[in-house]
């Protein structure tokens, strides 16, 4: 019974230490586990893959560093896929700090990874505009009313790939990475719902948001990448089609699934242990009751 009492009063710092080890050891070990793609991810991958080469893709990176762990690998995988397909990428964000996220993806995947791509012809950084859903509401009918210039101050009329763009409806697909407000919900409400014939929307979102977006499938949203698992599945799909992206240095999301596996197993073990203790303790109290 002394052990039971000790466990009931267990200092939570021991639990913190266990979680720390569950995350740290898999990171250092570097072992990855196989992933099988699910239909929701397949639909997004197929939508990007089946577009004719050189199609227009709007990349709306609506997140900041807090969600980078989950959404960064998604942005990376989407960008790599678009590069393979020679799609034209239009980056923008409705989050003030999203500009840093866009810059990170462009620097890493385009400037370093695909330096042959030309700014203004193959990709453009439209940057941030204040207004949250107000921005979406305006650009679905008139992009240049808000985006008169790109992030660097160059007039969008002087950017070759922006010349024939009137609104977001001219994009072949919108890929939205969402960490909250404004994000996928607002893109659904103000873009894909009022213009179902002309706007195709796919989303990658954080784990806590994923359940909120299931009601929009499959019409308002064609597919959904939920958290780091969604990103890992997308990496697997990308590697299956383009084997070069299956090399370990290109599968960041897959690597991040290992700490998630051990973290989840620890949480499950703690739930079981907590409940066992609860029921034993309850039985003991009933036994003592006169």
């Amino acid at each position, binding site marked *: 019974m002394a052990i039971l009492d000790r466990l009931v009063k*267990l200092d*939570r710092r021991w*639990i*913190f230490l*266990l*979680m*720390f080890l569950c995350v740290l050891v898999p990171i250092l070990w570097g072992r990855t*586990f*196989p*992933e*099988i793609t*699910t239909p929701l991810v397949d639909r997004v991958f197929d939508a990007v893959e089946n577009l004719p080469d050189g199609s227009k893709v709007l990349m709306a990176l609506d997140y900041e*560093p*807090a969600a*980078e*762990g989950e959404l960064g690998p998604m942005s990376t995988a989407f960008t790599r896929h678009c590069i393979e397909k020679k799609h034209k990428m239009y980056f923008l964000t409705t989050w003030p*700090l999203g*500009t*840093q996220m866009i*810059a990170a993806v462009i*620097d890493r995947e385009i400037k370093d990874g695909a330096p042959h791509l030309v700014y203004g012809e193959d990709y453009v950084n439209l940057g941030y*505009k*204040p*207004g*949250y859903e*107000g*921005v979406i*509401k*305006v650009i679905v*009918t*008139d992009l240049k*009313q*808000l985006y008169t210039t790109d*992030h*660097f*101050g*160059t007039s969008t009329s002087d950017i070759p790939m922006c010349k024939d763009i009137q609104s977001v409806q001219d994009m072949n697909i919108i890929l939205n990475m969402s960490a909250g407000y404004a994000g996928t919900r607002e893109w659904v409400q103000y873009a894909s719902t009022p213009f179902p014939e002309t706007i195709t929307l796919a989303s990658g979102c954080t*784990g806590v948001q*994923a*359940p*909120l977006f*299931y*009601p929009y*499938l499959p019409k308002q949203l064609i597919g959904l990448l939920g*958290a780091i*698992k969604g990103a890992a599945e997308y990496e697997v799909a990308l590697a299956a089609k383009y084997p070069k992206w299956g090399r370990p240095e290109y599968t960041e999301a897959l690597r991040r*699934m290992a700490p*998630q*596996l051990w*973290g*989840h*197993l*620890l*949480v*499950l073990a*703690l*739930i079981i242990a*907590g*409940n066992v203790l*609860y029921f034993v303790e309850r039985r003991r109290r009933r036994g003592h009751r006169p």
Partner: protein
Amino acid sequence: MKRTIPLLIAGAAGLIMLVSFFVPPWESWGEDAGTWFNILQGFAFILGGGNLLKVHLKKVSDRRRGWGYSGVTLIAFVVALVCGLLKIGVAPLAKFPEHAWSGPYNQEGSAFWYFFEYAFKPLVATTFSLLAFFVASAAFRAFRAKNLEASLLLGTAFLILLGRTFAGTWLTSWMPPSWEEFTIPGLGVTVMQVFVTAGNRAIMIGIALGVASTSLKVILGLDRSYLGAEGK
């Protein structure tokens, strides 16, 4: 006056948005109202900054409990603002070499960039990752199968937690492919696509009806709570 003008503006803006949605020739009115909203949103940043300064300066000057944190907030705010606005350490763009400020404020190597990469980013990521530790602690102390509802919730949590990792796939890998829906990941997907979706749709419809009725009250001037003390 203080009350009437905001009420009229809110009512007119609401009506314009409503009418522009249902009457196609007046669609552009809604777009114009949207542009106005975005301009006002820009000004809100100035108000927000001013409010932040006011609240924290007051706390520091009054030496209220935790005033040191307010001091840190103020220093971080001012440093980020100055670095961004003055573009400290930003090199001119190759296209406009004669204009010293032509580079973007967040250019790699600039003061703002250092501030963001080496202070803000690690701090935010650390704060967010602390959730994992508190969830683990809560899993041990709070998630109890005390009744039927709690047991159902725990069962669902098990399915989702296992289904989102390789463990779920591995545990039911012995099942034939035709039983895919009954594997742990398959059951997790069913929970999300059937039960969660049905529940969420009901909640969303309820919220939408609530929003519609509240909006109507705002447009008609019956709900004045958004005016704060002035509305009373």
